[in-house]
């Protein structure tokens, strides 16, 4: 329904549909950008050359994370638990490991030796620890925020 003060030309159903279209568009851009970064990284593009794409992806990620936490939201499918964070952290770690291995052994044709393998493994483990630490910090913020929002809503009921 159109509000008198609003400049919105759409009614609520049209608005909902447009929001869904925009949501799909956002995630399409997000994942295509992510794939483009991975592909370019595999082809030997340097971090400096990828800076623009990385900043754009990072900005979108930061926005989603901050907005979700501020509103006390986690994901739709998974509850914020230690176990879920332990499993989720393995995904970027695995992707980074595979990416580094392909780049080192297939594209740059480095010899498969202990030094290179250890370096790739160390980066993957580092990424795993960093992701897990970040998710745990997010989980603590989420739980604190959730409690605050629920307490505020409970006060309104009185």
């Amino acid at each position, binding site marked *: *329904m*159109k509000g008198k003060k609003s400049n919105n030309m759409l*009614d*609520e*159903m*049209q608005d909902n549909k447009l929001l869904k279209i925009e949501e799909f568009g956002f995630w399409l851009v997000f994942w295509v950008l992510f794939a483009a970064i991975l592909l370019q990284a595999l082809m030997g593009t340097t971090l400096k050359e990828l800076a623009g794409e990385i900043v754009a992806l990072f900005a979108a990620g930061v926005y989603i994370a901050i907005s979700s936490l501020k509103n006390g939201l986690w994901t739709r499918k998974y509850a914020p638990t230690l176990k879920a964070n332990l499993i989720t952290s393995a995904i970027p770690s695995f992707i980074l490991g595979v990416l580094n291995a392909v780049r080192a052994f297939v594209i740059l044709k480095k010899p498969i030796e202990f030094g290179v393998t250890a370096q790739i493994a160390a980066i993957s483990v580092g990424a795993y620890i960093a992701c897990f630490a970040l998710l745990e910090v997010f989980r603590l913020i989420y739980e604190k925020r959730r409690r605050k929002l629920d307490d505020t809503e409970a006060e309104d009921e009185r």
Partner: protein
Amino acid sequence: MLLCKWNGVVIIGRNVKIKAARGALDMTQKALAEAVGISRQTMNAIEQGDYNPTIKLCRAICKVLGKSLDELFGEEDS
């Protein structure tokens, strides 16, 4: 939109009550849509049960048709 219970499950069905109330006032779907400030497409979706309107829109429709929320959107057992 009508909330109907079928085997204990609430389902959204076609809202014939809106159509009937609109007909009683000799009002077209387009006229009702304009009166509540929505598109005819949305009004049609509500009558067909394809869109679940907000309580704010339900109240606006009730006001225009001179009916209560219960009369137009009340739950029915079937």
